[in-house]
C-alpha cells in the first residue's frame, strides 16, 4: 500500500485530506471567480443577512462575505505554505546541524534551539511587525521561525536515530558516500516525522494569522484574509453575530483539517503504531504477519 492509501484508510487522514483539498480548490477557484469582487464595497447593502445574492451576507462596508471567505482561502494557503516552507528550511538546517556535524557543534546547536524555543512566536511576530509593518510576511516568518525551531527539536533525535540504524551502516558498507547516504536513506526516513510536524505547523500558522491579525500584526487590513475578517467583524459581534461566524468556522475547519491530517499522517507513517519496533539488542525474534496493514 502506498502511504497515501494508508493515510486515506485512517478516518482522521481522510478528513484532513478532504479539508486540504477543499481549501486549496477554493483558493484556486477564487483566483478566477467569486460571486462578487471581494474588495468591492456597497455601503447601501451593508450588514445584509444571508440571502440571495449575498449567500453569507455582507460586512460593514457591504462587501460580500462569501467572496471574501473564498478569496481569504488564498491568504490561508499562502500563509500555511509559506510558513511551512520556512519552517522546513529552518527545521532541516538546524536539525542537520544538530545531528550530523561534529559533537561540539551538535551540542551548541541543541542549546541554541532550546533558547530559541523560549521566544514565543508572538514576540518574534511583534518584532517583525514593528519593523516592516503588519503583513502576511510577519505571520509567515514568525510562525516559520517559531515552528522551524520546534521541528528541529523533534527531528534532530529522529535523525540521530536513523543515523545509527543498521541500514545506514549497511549503506556505508555498500560504499555510499555520506552525501549519498543522506540523500538515499536519511532524508526519506526522517521525512514522515517531519511531514507530520509540518502539517501541525501549518495549522498553527492559520491560527496565528487570526491572532496576529487581531493584534494588528497580520495581513494588510484590506486584504481578503480570514484572520483580518475575524478581527474586523468581531467588533460587531453583539450586533451582527452571524457575520463573525463564517470566518471563525472557516479557520476552525481548516485548522481541524490540518491537525487531523497530521494525526492521520502520524498514524499511517509511524511504524510503532502498526507493529512493534525491533529491539536493538538481544536476540528478540521478530515475526511478521503475512499481510501488513
Amino acid at each position, binding site marked *: 500500500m502506498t502511504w497515501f492509501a494508508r493515510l486515506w484508510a485512517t478516518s482522521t487522514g481522510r478528513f484532513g485530506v478532504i479539508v486540504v483539498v477543499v481549501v486549496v480548490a477554493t483558493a484556486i477557484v477564487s483566483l478566477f471567480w467569486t460571486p462578487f469582487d471581494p474588495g468591492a464595497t456597497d455601503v447601501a447593502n451593508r450588514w445584509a443577512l444571508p440571502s440571495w445574492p449575498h449567500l453569507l451576507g455582507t460586512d460593514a*462596508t457591504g462587501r460580500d462575505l462569501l467572496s471574501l471567505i473564498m478569496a481569504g482561502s488564498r491568504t490561508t494557503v499562502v500563509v500555511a505554505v509559506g510558513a511551512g516552507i520556512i519552517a522546513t528550511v529552518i527545521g532541516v538546517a538546524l536539525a542537520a546541524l544538530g545531528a550530523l556535524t561534529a559533537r561540539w557543534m551538535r551540542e551548541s546547536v541543541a542549546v541554541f534551539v532550546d533558547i530559541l524555543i523560549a521566544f514565543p512566536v508572538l514576540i518574534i511576530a511583534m518584532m517583525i511587525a*514593528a519593523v516592516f509593518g503588519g503583513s502576511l510576511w510577519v505571520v509567515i516568518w514568525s510562525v516559520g521561525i517559531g515552528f522551524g525551531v520546534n521541528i528541529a527539536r523533534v527531528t534532530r533525535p529522529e535523525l540521530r536515530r536513523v543515523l545509527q540504524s543498521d541500514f545506514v551502516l549497511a549503506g556505508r558498507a555498500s560504499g555510499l558516500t555520506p552525501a549519498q547516504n543522506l540523500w538515499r536513506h536519511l532524508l526519506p526516513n526522517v521525512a514522515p516525522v517531519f511531514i507530520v510536524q509540518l502539517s501541525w505547523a501549518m495549522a498553527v500558522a492559520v491560527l496565528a494569522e487570526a491572532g496576529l491579525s487581531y493584534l*494588528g500584526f497580520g495581513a494588510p*487590513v484590506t486584504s481578503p484574509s480570514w484572520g483580518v475578517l475575524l478581527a474586523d467583524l468581531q*467588533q460587531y459581534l453583539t450586533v451582527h453575530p452571524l457575520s463573525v461566524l463564517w470566518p471563525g468556522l472557516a479557520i476552525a475547519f481548516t485548522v481541524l483539517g490540518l491537525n487531523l491530517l497530521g494525526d492521520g499522517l502520524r498514524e499511517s507513517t509511524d511504524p510503532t503504531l502498526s507493529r512493534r519496533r525491533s529491539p536493538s539488542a538481544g536476540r528478540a525474534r521478530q515475526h511478521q504477519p503475512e499481510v501488513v496493514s
Partner: protein
Amino acid sequence: TGGGSSPSSSKAAADPNATVNVRLVLEPGNLDIRQTAGAALDQILVDNVYQGLVSRTPDEKIVPALASDWTVSPDGLTYTFTLREGVTFDDGQALTPEDVVWSLQTRKDTAAWSDSGRLANVATIAAEGQKITLTLTKPDSSLLWNLTGRAGIILKKDDTVDYKTKANGTGPFVLTSWKQGDSITFQRNDKYWGTKAKAKEIVWDYIPDNQAALNGALAGELDVVTGFDANLKKQVEANGDFALKLGSATDKFVLAMNQKSGPLADKRVRQAIRQAIDHDAIVKANGSGVPLYGPIPKPDPGYEDLSKVAPYNPDAAKKLLADAGQKNLSLTLTMPSFYGTTIPQLLVSDLNKVGITLKVNSVDFSTWLQDVYTNQDYQLSLVDHAEARDFENWANPDYYFTYDNPQVQNLYAQSLAATSETDATNDLSQAARIVSNDMAADWLFNWNSVVAVATNVSGMPVDNINARINAAQLTKSKG
C-alpha cells in the same frame, strides 16, 4: 448638537459622592504635559487639572480661567491679564504671578517643550502685582487661542513633581492615580478656587477595543463610552440604560498626498482620487460625521462649504487619469493601524473602480511618524488631525503635506496679523478654498464624536471631546 453639555434626562438628584467611569480610547504615553505630545493628554489634563490664563468652551469660545479678565491693546501688540487671587496648586502652594511668568517664559525658551513655537511672537512677559503683561513683536490673532492650550498652561515655578506620572495643577480635579494600561483616576479638588466639581471621582478607563467597551457598558461597568462606534448603536440603545449623543468635532481625516514627485505631483491625478472617493458612503459606513471637502471643519473659523470643488464622480476621475496618462496606477497608503478597517476598505474599493490599485500599509504610529511625518517618505497617508484651528500646516511647506503655495502662506500670515476677527476669518476661508482647489489633499470627512451616556449621567460634554473633556459638570445620580 452644539450645546456645551448634554442636558440630563434624569430627574433624580445628582449624587455628590458619585464615581463616574468614562471610557477613553487612547492612553497617553506619560503624563508630562510639558513635552509629551498627543491629544490624549490635553483631553483630560487641561481644564480639569492644569489651567491657563484663559480657556475655551467646547464650541471654541475663549473664556476666562486663571485670569479673571484681559485686555488687548488696539494695535494688537499688548495683552494684559488680571490673575485671580486665592488660587492654589494641588500641593497647597499658592499660585503667584512669578509662576505665570516663569511658565510662559520657560515654555517659550525650551525647545523640547511642546508648542513653544506658538509663543514665538511674544517679546516680553512681565508681572506687576496681579497684572500679567505680554508684549508682542507683531500682532498675532491666534495668541489667545494658543494660550488656551498647552502653550498657556501655568505650572508651579521649578516644580519638583514627577511630571511623567503625577500632576500638580490648579484645576477642579486632582490626579490621584494612574494605573498604566488601565485607568487614570481624578478626585474632586475641594480647595478649588471656583465652582467645585460635581462628581467626587472620575475614572478614565482606557479600553482600545470597541467591543470590550460596549460589553463593559452593557455589563454596567462604564457610565460613559466615548469614541463609540456608531455601528453598535442598536445594541446600546436596545439596552435602554444608555442614550447616544452626537457632538461636533474638529477631527479632519486627511488623506495627504505626497506631491513632491511621482504620479501625485500631477494635480489631475490628485483630483481624480478626490472625485473617485464617495465621501457620503464613508460617512454612512462610519455611522456618524459630516463630509468635508476642505482643510477647515465647520466648528473652526474660516469654514465654508467646498463640496463643489471636487464632487464624487468616478467617470470624471477616470477621464482625468486618462488625461494624465496614468493607466494601471498603483499607490500605497501609509496609515497608523488604529483607525480601523472601514475607511481603507472603502478607499480600496473606490479607487479600484477608477483603475487605481491601492495598497494599504497600516503601521505603528511611531513608524508613521518616522516614515511619513519626519522623512516624508510616502505616497498617500491617512491621519486624523484632531486639533482645532490647525490651518497653519497648509502654510508650512516643510510639513509632511508637502504643499507649497506662497499665496496660501501669505494669506495665512495676513490672517494672523489681522486685528479684526472678521478679517482673520476671511483670509482663512480664502486660503482654504485655494488649498482645496489645488487638490492639496483629500479630506475624507469631519469626524463627529459619538458618546454613549448612561441615562443617570449628566454634564457630559460631547463636542470636541477628542481635544478636551471638561469634567467639572459631569456627575451621576444614584440608582
